[in-house]
């Protein structure tokens, strides 16, 4: 099996997600992109796990999913909070923290 292709796939997916995080203005879409980045890393872990014939990669995926779940919970809670207090979900409006 051509594992390099899978690694490249994972890298491409990661970059796509990264572009979403860096470029999109909608907070929800930014968070979606963030999840997709994590997912791209998961694909890399599983491919490598098969490539190396060790389970460590898959164990790490469990960890990543855990952190991703926690991250999603916090992030969405933040979005809810932001929406309630400022009435928006636009990244641009978050510049108030500037000096």
């Amino acid at each position, binding site marked *: 099996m051509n594992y390099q292709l899978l690694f490249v796939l994972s890298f491409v997916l990661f970059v796509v997600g990264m572009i979403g995080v860096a470029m999109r203005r909608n907070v929800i879409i930014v968070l979606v992109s963030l999840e997709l980045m994590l997912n791209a890393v998961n694909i890399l872990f599983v491919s490598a796990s098969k490539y190396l014939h060790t389970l460590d990669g898959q164990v790490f995926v469990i960890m990543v999913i855990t952190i991703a779940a926690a991250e999603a919970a916090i992030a969405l809670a933040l979005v809810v909070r932001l929406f309630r207090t400022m009435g928006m979900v636009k*990244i641009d409006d978050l510049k108030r923290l*500037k*000096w």
Partner: protein
Amino acid sequence: MELNVLRYIVLSPLIGFLINGIGGKRLGHRAVGLVANATVLISFLIGVYAFTVLLSMPVNERLLTDTVYTWISAGALTIDVKLMMDPLSVVMALVVSGVGFLIHVYSLGYMHEDRGYARYFSFLNLFMFSMLLLVLSSNIVLMFVGWEGVGLCSYLLIGFWYEKDSAANAGKKAFITNRIGDYGFLLGLFLLASSLASKGVLSLDFTAMAGHVALLSPAVLTVIGVLLFVGATGKSAQLPLYVWLPDAMEGPTPVSALIHAATMVTAGVYMIARMNFLYVLAPTALEVVAVVGALTALYAATIGLVQNDIKRVLAYSTISQLGYMFMGVGVGAFSAGIFHLMTHAFFKALLFLAAGSVMHALSGEQDMRKMGGLRTKIPVTYAVFLAAALAIAGIPGLSGFFSKDSILAAAYGSGHTVVWLLGFITALLTGLYIFRLMSMTFYGESRIDEHTAHHIHESPKVMTVPLIILAALSIIGGYVGVPRLLGNIFGWHDSDMFVHFLAPVFPVVPAHKMPVAVETWLMIGSIAMAVLGVFAALYVYVTKRMQPAKSAAQAVPGLYRLLLNKYYVDELYNAVIIRPLMALSRSFLWKFFDVWIVDGTVNGSAYVTEWASARLRKIQTGDFQVYVTIFLIGVFSVLAYFVLR
């Protein structure tokens, strides 16, 4: 021999200081007084115990030590916190703790009404700690700690009534003048340490130094001796650094008695006696000590003649008597100097405390022109004052006579005729000024205003009992050192026990072989001078009821004004040192250095930061996606570097 209780002599007052200093406000008067007095009494009792131990030892092995811990260990040099008790230390320790204890007791009554009762006693205990450390330390560095400690306490206690401007200023004056002296002391200490180290002697213990100091060249020793003596002139109020002591009378009277009469100011004398091994090798330095001492004795006595403040007369008298002590150690008669130190501690502490009792009776009046005729009104105070006055005047049979006479005899016998002459004249002046004080205070008519006169009362027992004990000491204290001449007359052999006791500490001074006749005439001469002074004063002030001040002011106005203004020394220092220093500080240090260099650096760095941040701020857009992008660029740059390398 190791004797580990020595440390408790020093520690006990420190514990008292900590208790009163930390918890004084909550303890209440009774407990504060109890703690302060008990700790000093404990020191005294341990001192007495150590004294008995010392006496039981062979004469030439009388040395007790107590190493507490190693304080400084730098390379080959180690300095221990180590206490030492030899005959010299034990005399000092007993005088300090004994007289100190009596003054503590007296303070119970004298300071009873004061708001800062606990503060007063904690400072007093701190002073006892420092002073005992000074006299018991076994090396010169530890001694310097005590030396500075007593200076600090002196400052704190002179400025005890800090709300009074004059007291606060007097405290500062004392501290700064002492610093000048201490500067000399430190230089001497450094020179001593470095020159000893260059000879391979890495110890500053007195005993170790005594054995090796002969390695140094006489010139170096002379410089060290003079520098150390500069420190002594500051601490012991000698010319030219005596100016702080008269002003120090702003402090509470028991403080004047304890610190500025009996103990601290004698530290300089003690130091020179302690360093005797160095001074005997530096005769020039010793000569300086003797001459400065003699000049100070005469100089201060003349000022004391015209002062009207009862405490100031005593202050100048103290300076004068300290001059005697330096005269004694300066002519090589170390034990005579220490003997006078001890008797002086008794009678001068008594004089101050009795003066305090007078002030107590007169609601704080210090001006002798507003006293008079107190003899019958406060008889106990009068009686003890008389005893002390006779003692200081050198009337035969009282302590001051023996000690003063042995100094004068030593001065004459060692060939210091000029020094002896100055001391001889001072003996007359001493009788004169002290009985001028007696006359103005206790004899003649009362010049007390009615309001104050109404309140005159004898001091309470807690004050008079220490006075009586000190009076007894002033009278009999001299009999431990009766000159051999007198001892022979009364068939009392080995009468000068004091000299014998101290003999192991001090170098063998070549015996002053004076014909008995000369010695007798010397003694008769000084007795005559003392009696003459006393009766002249009594005659002028009591019998004739003259106002010699007025007639003197008319006859020799220049001299009188010179004396009244204390030779204009304060004014001289003001013009020569303080004014230029102030001008320099104002024009250069403040207007230029502080404003431009110090403030300029601070403000400049603030300005540069502000300028830079105003520009750097622009990067901070607050847009987190820009940050993410920059961060990713960074990550990929690093990756690219590792991949493409």
